[in-house]
Every structure is written in C-alpha cells, then in structure tokens.
C-alpha cells in the first residue's frame, strides 16, 4: 500500500512579475517501507518536493495523500503536528541546537508532540540505535560532524516516524562518515523504515532502492533497483 500519493502536484511562487514553477504537475507514489532517492541538479525542484513531503509547505494545486488521509490543505498547526508525530528529518547541516544537550536535542520532537512519558528513555534508546548512547550529556559543539549527524538521525527516529526525510545528509561529511551514515540508513530500511533521500550525488542516490529523477519542476523518470 502506498504511504504517500502525489497527484499532479504544482507549487508556484511569484517572484516579482514572474511565476516560478518550482513543481509542475508531479504525480508519484511512495510505498510503505520504500527507500527512494530524489535526484536532480540544484534548482530542479527537489528541495520544494522535500518541503512538501515534509509538511513544511503546501502545494498550490494537486492532491497529496499521506497514510490514507488527504493532506493537501492543512493548517500550519496541523502540519506541525505531522512534523512532530509522523516525520523525521535529517539535514545537511545537522541542525542541532547548540545550547541543548544531545539528549535534549533528540527529545525535542517528543516535547513538541506532548509525548512526555518516558521521553528521556525513548531519546536514549534512539541514541543507542545510532551508536551514540555514550554521549547523552554532551553539547553538539563537542561532537565531530559524523557524530552530530548520527545524533540528528536519532532525533529523526525518536518519534517512530512513518517517514524519514534526509536532505543531502552526507553533504558535510567525509568519506568514512558518509559510509557509516549510509550503512545506518540501510539498516533502518531493513528494519522497515520508509526513507526518502534528497540529493544531487549519484553515488549516494545509488544506496536507495529506487531513484526519482527531477528536472525543471517535473518528474523525468523513476528507476527501480538502485544498488540492489
């Protein structure tokens, strides 16, 4: 069954007198347990796609079904609810809050989802899953880039999301850490996690089991297989 169904989704922006078609009639299905990579050059619309899939933005037209519910037109607080309860994000720049400890950073989605019961334990479990259980009370500034990204992945995992979105997750990492992060993703998918990578790096994209090619706001092809 499809977790996400996009049907002729458009996203248009007005820039002065011009209308920019960031996404122009994209239709797509992503199944439960899928591991897809959205691949395209910068300016292709893949970031916009990631924002839409991540409930950070809403489409100008078209419909989006998430987990059986029509989510094309949601209020901003409803979108926040989805972000807190159904999604996990991994960013290129990690986006950890420097003032908070590793544990507090990971716990943040639970705090905003008002899931306070056992939230510390759940955050610790998530950190264990990414191999960062020994760093709970550190500040992000005391960690290496690879460690920070693993903490960010733990934060994405902590609310048992339906979908994890990773936006250029390896862009700021060295080769060794890229491997570790990609291995971690592979393992999560093996455990049944649905995951979408957004990248312009073909090598990274090849870890995914299907590739979605985007160019000029249009879907130009999907490719099954990837690395398998």
């Amino acid at each position, binding site marked *: 069954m499809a977790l996400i169904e996009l049907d002729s989704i458009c996203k248009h922006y007005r820039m002065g007198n011009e209308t920019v078609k960031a996404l122009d009639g994209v239709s797509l299905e992503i199944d439960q347990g899928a591991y897809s990579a959205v691949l395209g050059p910068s300016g292709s619309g893949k970031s916009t796609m990631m924002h839409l899939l*991540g409930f950070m933005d809403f489409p100008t037209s078209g419909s989006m079904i998430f987990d059986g519910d029509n989510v094309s037109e949601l209020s901003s607080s409803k979108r926040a609810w989805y972000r807190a309860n159904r999604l996990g994000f991994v*960013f290129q720049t990690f986006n950890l809050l420097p*003032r908070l400890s590793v544990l507090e950073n990971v716990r943040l989605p639970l705090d905003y989802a008002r899931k306070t019961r056992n939230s510390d334990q759940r955050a610790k479990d998530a950190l264990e899953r990414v191999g960062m259980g020994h760093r709970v009370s550190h500040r992000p500034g005391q960690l290496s880039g690879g460690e920070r990204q693993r903490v960010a992945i733990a934060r994405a995992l902590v609310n048992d999301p339906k979908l994890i979105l990773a936006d250029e997750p390896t862009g700021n990492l060295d080769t060794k850490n890229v491997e570790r992060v990609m291995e971690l993703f592979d393992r999560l998918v093996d455990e049944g996690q649905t995951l979408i990578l957004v990248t312009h790096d073909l090598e990274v994209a090849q870890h995914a089991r299907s590739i979605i090619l985007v160019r000029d706001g249009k879907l130009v092809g999907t490719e099954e297989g990837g690395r398998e």
Partner: protein
Amino acid sequence: MIIGSAIIHGVREIGKHKFRSFLSMIGIILGVAALVAMVGVVEGMMAGFRKTFETTGGIERLSIDEVEPPTHQEAIAHLSPKRTLADYYALQQSVPIARRIAAGKDMNWINMRSQNGRTWGRAIGTTPEIAEIDDYSVISGGRFISDWDVQQKSRVVVLSHRQASRLFGDPKDAVGETISLRGIVFNVIGVQENDETGQWMRQRQAFLPISTAIHYFADAEDITINRLAVQARDMRDIPELTDLIERTLLITHKGVEDFAVESRLEQLEEFKKLENSFIFSLGGVAAITLLVGGIGIANVMLASISERIREIGIRKAVGARGTDIFVQFVAEALVISVIGGFLGVIASVGLVELLRDLMPTDKGGQVALSARAMAWGFIFSVVVGFLAGIFPALKAARLPVIDALRYE
C-alpha cells in the same frame, strides 16, 4: 510542560547574555523603584497631614471666622461687636448638641521672666477646651486652664516644655512657681508635654485664661477674640450645628453677618485633590519609566529573535507549532521582567531609605515603605514584560519554517 521548559530555557538564555539582559532590565528596575518610592513619599506626606488634621479637631471641627459683612449691611456693620467672649458664652448656652466649644485670642510675643531665667513666648488666651481640641496635654503635677480661671481672670499660665526648662531648668520644678509677664506676676499651674511632632510654634506657646489675656494684654477697648471653634459630636450633626451657630451669633452680632461658619469638608476635599494630583503626576512618571523598561525588553527580545531565526526554524521543523514558539519567547520576556521587578523591589528599599534621610521630618511626614506599592510595582513590571514580549514573540511564531531554516 512546554511552559516549564520554556521558562528553564528562558533562564538559560538570559544566563548566556547576562550584560545585555541586565541592561534591558534597568528600565524595569528603575520603574518599580520609582513607583514604590513615589507611593512611599505621598503616603508619608498624607499620613503627616492626616495626623495634623486629627490633632487639630478632625473633620468634626467647625471654625467661626470673621468676614466682611455684605454690602447692604455696611450701614449697620458698626453695631456688631464682632467676635467676643459673649459669643462663646452664648454658644455654650444655646448649642447643647456641640461636643466642645472653644475660644482663643492670640497675643503678641511676650518677654517671660523667672527668678533665674528669661525667654520669649507667644501668649495665647484660651478656654479649657483648646487642650482637648488641639490635643495639648500637661505633665503630671500640673493642670490646664479651667473654667473657673476664665471666670475669675486668674493670673495663671501653662508654659511650654521648652519655656519651662529655659526658666526653671527642670520643667517639673516650674509648677507652683511664679513668673513675670510684662511685669505682671503669674502662677505657673502646668507645663505642656514635650511636643512629639516637634512643631516650632507649638514649642513656644504659653496659655493664659482668655479673659486674663484680654484684660492685661489686649489694647484698651479691644474685647474681640480671634479664634472661635465648635466641635461636633458627629459629622452628621454638622448641618444642624451650623444652622444653630448662625442663628445664635446673628443675635449677639446684632443681625450683622460679619462671621462665617467654616467646616473642614472643603479642606478635606482639597487635600484629597492634592493627594490625587500627586499620585497621578508621580504615578505617571513611574508608568512612563516602566513603559520605557518595556520597550527595552521588547528591543532585546527582537535582537535575540533575529539572532535565533535558525533555531526557530529547527524547532518548527521538528514539530513546534507557532504557539510553542510564542510561549517560549513570551516566557523569556517574562523571566527578564520578573527578575527586573524583583531587583526593582530590592532597589526601592534602598531608595526609600535614602529619601527618608533627605526628607524633613518636622512636617510630620515620614516616607513609608509600602508593601502594597511593592506588590503593585512587581505586578506592573511583570505585566509590562508580558506585553513587551508579545510582539516579538508573535513575530517569531509567524516565521515560515522554510525561510527560518534556510536563514544563515
């Protein structure tokens, strides 16, 4: 839970920017301190005024003042003997509902001599009731002027504490001794208690029976008095009493309306108006200071928010709603204002102490530290902080998540 952690983060955030936060608090601190000190000064002043008001007869006191007769009575004005002791006796006969009736005549300054000393004093002719209306008491061993003294024109005198010590060393030794006033010998029958309010005038007054004063010290033919006061039993009696007094005095004054019965209600009204104008003007100053303090907080909050746009984006990306962000920043403003208000209350204690040393105390005024004013100052500062936090917090809450996340 969100509010609790918002407050904890607010405290942490302020801890990171101690100096900046302190600067933003200064307005609040000064505002609260000014408010408390202002209330302290006004309340102290008004308490002093009230005390003087009470010790001089209170609201129940009516005084009968001399006024110009109306123009149509000019022809008969000379018939009136003006205010005299006859008025005093007439009132005593015909106004039984009065609590006390008193008459007085202020004389000139007089040279006073004992065997071993000399001093100056203001001689005041009185009837016995003055002691009660104006709250004079006599030290043990002596007594005040009596009705008998007034009737007999006795040559007796009640000295002030200061005069007695000047003339006899120990005031207690004065009673029973004789002194000379302008060459006339008087018996000292009493000495006034040392005056706690410390008023200059009260320390230099010597009381004689009013009849005696007129007889020995007034100009020839002058039988007028210059103080005539009636004290009511109750404020509600004042209209009836006024009417009775007017009717009685019209007879003794041969129909000439050369007197006026003045109640102190107008005086009390004036006093309340004065109190209000003080509160509004000084309160306005304190309110403006607090407002400026609020602007300071809003400014720091805006600065803090533009530094933390990315943080707001991250928080929103992982699920924070606009409300969560709003609560976080309002809580931060509240923490600043609560700390500021608290420091302001502490500062107000010092400021009030300082003012207490600077203000003269002989007017009966005492700067008071009012717990109520401190509570209000604190509450106002918190309200101001809250209001100052709303606009910046709304701005933060409305930031679109994508823009905030992309912000470098």
